[in-house]
């Protein structure tokens, strides 16, 4: 008998489940992949301090297991959900049915399929790879080499691939790619100090506490060269190198450069079948494909549907610390909901009612002033 079902065993799902278990709830985590840990478990090192990613997820799973109150069902998806009064009846792909008081959606994101930016040649040219590919190369422990097995002398990082791009219907900034590019650029320089490393960016979004230090180190310590310009295209030369074209906007001139390897910083999109799950749970989806919380500030882990909660990158791109904080907040929200949710007039309804009234007030005030 479970109290809460968590959908997704990435870092958001694991963290929320751990917290809920500590509060005394029985939690079932449903994970579509064969293993827990999500994208983070497949990464090599994390910005800003290059902490080992697999180590982080392993530690999180150890913490979770300590409580023995969480059960992870890997390789399982949610087939159907039906509300039964205050509770939810959930049917899983393995045929089993469970009843829970609350559902937490922690389905995260999927990486943008870089083949959709055909002009950059991913999947067509040998030495155009994605940030995730490079991370796997790093994780393998072997030196990073070109398709022919040679060490790259020149590497270009291309920011905003699949992000901030109306042409692929992704208006949003994926938030983590700038910091990842700078991290990976430094790692390449560390591996090959005499390699030339370029970052092609539109805006460098170094928003978090240690990011500016990373940026500074990339320039001062590693000599990474930053060019402000969005790529128009990449082309493969006869010797298998990649020629990229951009405007060096700060020079006001077109620029082309041949590199041994071009790394596309693939952005985040809402995870596969987020919309299907959202429909099942009656959660609204934004134009960007991410889920809408009930209120961006005050109800960021609630949805408009009673008993359905959200955490992590399913509500938009987030860094790892942001995701973990969000997961903890979701656990607190769920705890509050379950404790008072059975009362006829719940605290939550009161709060939402208040916010709604306030909003109406502001809205009517605004429309009055417009008249």
């Amino acid at each position, binding site marked *: 008998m479970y109290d809460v079902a968590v959908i997704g065993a990435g870092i958001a799902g694991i963290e929320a489940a751990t917290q809920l278990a500590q509060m005394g709830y029985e939690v079932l985590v449903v994970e579509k992949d064969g293993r827990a840990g999500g994208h983070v478990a497949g990464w090599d090192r994390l910005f800003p301090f290059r902490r080992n990613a697999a180590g982080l997820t392993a530690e999180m799973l150890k913490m979770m297991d300590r409580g023995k109150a969480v059960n992870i069902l890997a390789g399982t998806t949610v087939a159907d959900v039906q509300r039964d009064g205050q509770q939810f009846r959930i049917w899983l792909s393995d045929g089993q049915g469970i009843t829970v008081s609350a559902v937490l959606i922690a389905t995260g994101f999927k990486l943008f399929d870089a083949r959709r930016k055909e*002009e950059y040649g991913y999947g067509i040219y040998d030495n155009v790879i994605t940030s995730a590919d490079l991370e796997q190369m790093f994780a393998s422990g072997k030196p990073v080499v070109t398709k022919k097995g040679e060490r790259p002398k020149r590497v270009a990082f291309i920011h905003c691939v699949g992000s901030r*791009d109306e*042409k692929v219907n992704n208006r949003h900034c994926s938030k983590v790619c700038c910091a990842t590019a700078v991290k990976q650029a430094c790692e390449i320089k560390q591996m090959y100090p005499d390699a030339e490393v370029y970052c092609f960016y539109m805006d460098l979004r170094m928003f978090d506490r240690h990011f500016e230090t990373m940026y500074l180190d990339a320039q001062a310590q590693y000599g990474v060269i930053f060019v402000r310009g969005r790529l128009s295209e990449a082309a493969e030369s006869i010797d298998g190198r990649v020629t990229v074209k951009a*405007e*060096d906007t700060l020079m006001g001139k*077109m620029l082309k450069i041949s590199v041994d390897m071009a790394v596309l910083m693939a952005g985040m999109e809402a995870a596969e079948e987020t919309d299907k799950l959202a429909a099942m749970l009656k959660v609204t989806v934004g134009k960007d494909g991410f889920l809408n919380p009930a209120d961006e500030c005050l109800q960021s882990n609630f949805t408009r549907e009673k008993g359905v909660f959200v955490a992590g990158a399913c509500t938009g791109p987030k860094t790892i610390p942001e995701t973990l904080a969000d997961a903890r907040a979701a656990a607190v929200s769920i705890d509050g909901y379950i404790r008072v949710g059975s009362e006829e007039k719940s605290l939550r309804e009161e709060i939402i009612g208040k916010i709604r009234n306030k909003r109406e007030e502001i809205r009517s005030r605004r429309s009055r002033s417009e008249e």
Partner: protein
Amino acid sequence: MDFGYSINQSSKIDMDRASGDIAAQVLRYEPSFAVCIGCGACMATCSAGRFTPFNLRRLQLMVMRGQTDSVHAEAEKCMLCGKCRLICPRGINTRNVLLAIHHFTAPAPTLDIR
């Protein structure tokens, strides 16, 4: 008395004197003009800019800042191939922007608009 020197015009953008009239006209004709972030993708793919100093990104900015003296002559250099429109990550109708800039800075109208 001629001292043999003159006073140079200031090269700074004087926003107190700059007029936003042309920018406003272009905006009205093509509202997507407003959303340029200056990424330069249009220029990276520009056929005309490859051989001439033509630069649409700069042209947009000049109009936005009211620096329109040389804008019409610059706009003449565009070949209207439309590649910039295909590439623009903000989805700007760059061709319409160019045509509007050309029209509103011309001595006689070049587009059939009221």
